[in-house]
């Protein structure tokens, strides 16, 4: 994603494969090379992770990390569209790897059949440019936010339950809030329900997951306020909507399948200076590794059944 590396040419098959997006104004060879040089890690290969990964692989993101410790269950197939009947009981990260290679064999896919913990989070996530939170539980959401802040990477966070979805980018330069800025204290455990308990409609996770890929691709192409990248795009005449991104507050996209209108955008606060996640006195990496996120969130009752 660095701007100073000279652009290597694409192969002829790459031109053919990505032609439909490369001819977009302001995208071009440079945009495709940015995608190819980008590394994105998706944590959770469930209802959100599957559609997000599908579109990131199809678009040609060069390196995709896929983190999930769970195996494919029949009850997943209602919404987790990368998995198949024949791959039941296979690790989800490996099932996803197979599906993504069938779509695009020219990218690097790195599966991690492991649960993300405070001990391995930094080691796994540091080699990626952007982190997608496609998990389904509160402790991992705090862990991902703290690690994203420690590593200085944007966190594209999706969530869904029943007929509702939410989407937010945390830790977005220069002054976007982290998850703790918005939610300094974890919810009371008795009020936290999982998708297994309350249910979820597959198209709702599908909608949010695809929109996470939209935001991730915008970040890679520099359409989220990075000044250097922005200048490049202005010269190539992208629509002026871009200008609006520069000093925009962070936003939360709220989707409610049955409401009218179904989408709602809320302007969010900037970083809190005294946030324990991203403020002056923020958690150092060592602190993250010492933190028991499950206990912080009120107990062991946490079910990482990959959504």
């Amino acid at each position, binding site marked *: 994603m660095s701007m100073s590396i000279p652009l290597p040419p694409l192969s002829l098959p790459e031109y053919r494969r990505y032609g439909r997006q490369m001819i977009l104004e302001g995208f071009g060879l440079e945009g495709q090379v940015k995608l190819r040089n980008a590394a994105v890690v998706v944590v959770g290969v*469930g209802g959100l992770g599957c559609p997000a990964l599908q579109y990131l692989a199809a678009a040609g993101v060069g390196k995709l990390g896929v983190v999930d410790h769970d195996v494919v269950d029949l009850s997943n197939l209602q919404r987790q569209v990368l998995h198949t009947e024949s791959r039941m009981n296979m690790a989800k990260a490996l099932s996803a790897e197979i599906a993504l290679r069938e779509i695009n064999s020219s990218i690097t896919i790195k599966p991690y059949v492991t649960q993300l913990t405070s001990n391995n989070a930094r080691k796994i996530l540091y080699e990626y440019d952007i982190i997608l939170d496609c998990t389904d539980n509160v402790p991992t959401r705090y862990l991902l936010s703290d690690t994203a802040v420690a590593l200085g990477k944007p966190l594209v966070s999706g969530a869904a339950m029943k007929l509702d979805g*939410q989407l937010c980018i945390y830790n977005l330069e220069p002054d976007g809030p982290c998850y703790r800025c918005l939610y300094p*204290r*974890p919810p009371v455990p008795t009020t936290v329900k999982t998708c297994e308990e309350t249910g979820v409609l597959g198209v709702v996770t599908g909608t949010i997951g695809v929109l996470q890929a939209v935001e991730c691709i915008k970040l890679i192409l520099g359409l989220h306020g990075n000044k250097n990248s922005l200048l490049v795009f202005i010269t190539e005449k992208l629509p002026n909507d871009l200008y609006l991104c520069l000093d925009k507050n962070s936003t939360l996209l709220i989707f409610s399948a049955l409401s009218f209108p179904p989408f709602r955008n*809320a302007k969010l606060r900037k970083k809190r200076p005294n946030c324990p996640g991203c403020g002056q006195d923020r958690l150092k990496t060592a602190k993250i590794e010492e933190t028991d996120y499950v206990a912080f969130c009120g107990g062991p009752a946490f079910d990482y059944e990959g959504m």
Partner: protein
Amino acid sequence: MSLDQLNLKIVFGGGLELLFSNQRSHNISIPSRVNSKLYNGETTTTEEQNIKSFSRRPGILVLINDTDWELEGEGDYVLNDGDEIVLISTLHGG
């Protein structure tokens, strides 16, 4: 719309609507005073009580006209007729 009433729309989302007979949207009127604030000291309606109680729970966002109420001064925000207040619970599933 009478001048001594503020008409507000209160919307619950992210699961909070379950606590209100699954009804997301509520139109309410409260007596208007000079500089009515979101917390005006004395509790006049059930809805106001609900906003108070929920806004202090962890994992709840309060939006005033689609803007995080922290940007609007939180409890110091002066209510206007027609304001829409959204209380939304953060979702954790995927």
